[in-house]
């Protein structure tokens, strides 16, 4: 794609400045994109004279202008998203869980590149792109590193579910790393979900139909050729609801919660005096909506306690 000169192109300049406003500056790329697009949709008619004043041609009508702006927003956020994916995979994901899951195995050298490619693919599908926003936020904000050591220290429900019921012999760091892997693969479960399907839940976070998941599994397993299929299947199962899915493992259940938490993270949120902390508030609301969202209420109870005790 031909690179545009940001200094001379009024649309590029306008969108770049929009992304730097205090409301958007601290948000991850995909949240920036969603917020910017939503802003344009909500304020279209009011914006036209402002756009004209900065040299953006609005003669073709709002729809045409919107499409050009949206294209630029996506182009800009794609660039940022690329860097976020790179940071998440290269800096956060260590594949430390491989030896623990199978003593004889070392992480294949191709795995990292395959996961970057899968994330790029997810970013190109409208529903998966939304799912990716939650996953990337959770990974980059180190949500797993925050909670897993606490879960291991407490050795309560979630720990028992992971180590005794799912029978994974992992230490806290390995488990956190496994969850990062699951979070990054999870959006691919939505690759075969149509964007206009009404589920009552947010696109990218609603439970996936078994059929769509099966198709996604074949596609993703083929793409992650170096990764054991069982690992891919476990990651994709994090798009299934609890408790209606028989035998849904602890790791996918926990990954769904973290992906949703990542989706709601607001980096620059100022906590008012008299308000509870962001994590504590979120987990408390989530446990009240657990059955509706298809989340494990006991895991949410435990995460709520951890957030509460630590003032998160």
């Amino acid at each position, binding site marked *: 794609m031909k690179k545009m000169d940001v200094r001379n192109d009024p649309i590029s300049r306008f969108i770049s*400045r*929009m992304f*730097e*406003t*205090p*409301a*958007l500056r601290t948000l991850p790329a995909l949240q920036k994109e*969603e*917020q*910017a697009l*939503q*802003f344009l*949709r*909500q*304020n279209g008619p*009011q*914006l036209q004279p*402002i756009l004209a*004043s*900065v040299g953006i041609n609005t003669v073709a009508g709002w729809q045409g202008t919107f499409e050009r702006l949206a294209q630029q927003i996506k182009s800009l956020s794609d660039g940022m998203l690329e860097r976020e994916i790179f940071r998440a995979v290269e800096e956060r994901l260590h594949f430390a869980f491989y030896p623990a899951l199978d003593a004889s195995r070392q992480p294949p050298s191709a795995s990292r590149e395959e996961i970057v490619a899968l994330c790029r693919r997810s970013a190109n599908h409208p529903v998966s792109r939304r799912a990716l926003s939650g996953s990337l936020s959770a990974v980059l904000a180190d949500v797993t590193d925050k909670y897993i050591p606490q879960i291991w220290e407490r050795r309560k429900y979630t720990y028992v579910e992971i180590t005794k019921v799912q029978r994974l012999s992992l230490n806290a760091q390995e488990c956190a790393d496994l969850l990062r892997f699951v979070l990054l693969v999870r959006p691919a479960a939505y690759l075969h979900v149509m964007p206009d399907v009404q589920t*009552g*839940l*947010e696109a990218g*976070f609603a439970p996936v139909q078994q059929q769509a998941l099966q198709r996604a599994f074949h596609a993703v397993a083929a793409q992650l050729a170096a990764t054991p299929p069982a690992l891919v299947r476990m990651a994709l199962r994090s798009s299934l609801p609890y408790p209606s899915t028989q035998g849904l493992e602890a790791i996918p259940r926990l990954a769904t919660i973290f992906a949703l938490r990542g989706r*709601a993270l*607001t980096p620059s*949120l100022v*906590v*008012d*005096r*008299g*308000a*509870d*902390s*962001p994590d*504590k*508030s*979120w987990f*408390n*609301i*989530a446990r*009240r*909506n657990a059955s*509706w*969202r298809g989340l494990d209420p006991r895991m949410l109870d435990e995460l709520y306690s951890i957030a509460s005790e630590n003032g998160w």
Partner: protein
Amino acid sequence: MSTGQEMVGDRMKKIGDFFESLVVIVIIVALAHTFLDDFSILVGWTVAARRWLIWAGLVIDVIFTIEFFTRLYFALMRGQVTEYFFSERGWIDFIASVPLLLFNSLPSVLALLAGAGLLTGLGSFLNVLKVIKAVRIARILRLLRVVKLFRRIRYARSLLAQKHIAIITTISVTVLVAWMLVANLLGGLGILAGLERPFLGAQREHARYLGQGSADPAAVAARARTLAAFDPTLLVARPTGAATSWTRYDDSYYVTNFLAGDYEYFSMNGVESFFDGRPVSQATAKEGIVFFVAILLSVLAYILLYSPRFALDITDPIHVMKRGMEESGYNLEVKIPQRRAEEDVFELARLYNSIFLPLKDRGSTQQEQATRLGIDEIRSFVDKE
């Protein structure tokens, strides 16, 4: 983009803010002045320094009177005089300005301007100063203006907190000052007299002694000499309307050591007498300082102790709930102290946490997230370009 009207509005707002800041400074100066006014008498500051304080008092009351009339004028222009007087506490602006100017600072300055003339023919004016002494206590009403400072205090940003604390402070200060005024008046009638009663009673007796017998200047002088030997507070004696028959000091001493309010004046049986009233003034000043500090401390306690408590109990939870209802991305729960969960506001907060927020969460997943970006932010950066 800013229109001409917006620019004018901005300028007016800046002028308004400057005016408000100026008033706040004058309020603080006025409080310091009210304290120093009594303190200067108590510790015996020089007359020159006390003259400055009298002038400063006049300037302060003039500023407050101008402020009151300016606000009244604008309220009149808006057709909201009643609202200004009652809802916006214009009555405080009034009683802490006009009566103090008319009955305290202005007569004090007039007495100051009369200077030593008081001793040569304006003695009856000193009776007016006795009225002034009675209403001096009303200067503490200036403390009510402190309520205007509430909006600048960290814990009282909400209108509810400002209003609530202002009401409590206003009631407390007004009741206390009103009671002190009544007590002063009762003191004047001899019903609730203070430490000064025996002192003034003795001077009155001595004035009566000076009036007994002939009003001939030589006879008055002779009686004054006799009395002066055992009453060191007797300063001047003369037949009414005549020249001074006897004086303890020469006129220049009075000019440099006494202000009009420092004399006790009596006129009995054709003889006028002036006594040193400074011991009485000092006793009154001491009472004034004690009373001023007590009220100031209670006002500060409202601001520093009660105001944060009110904010934590009432306005903070309300603010969090209001933001949660207004902003789509703000989903923080209200912190509910365990011991106080049964209080009304926290009962409401519990319902907000347990019913409203989960329902909001469900609603937000079914629709597009509302944007946090506002059109004003866009205007702002476009304007800068």
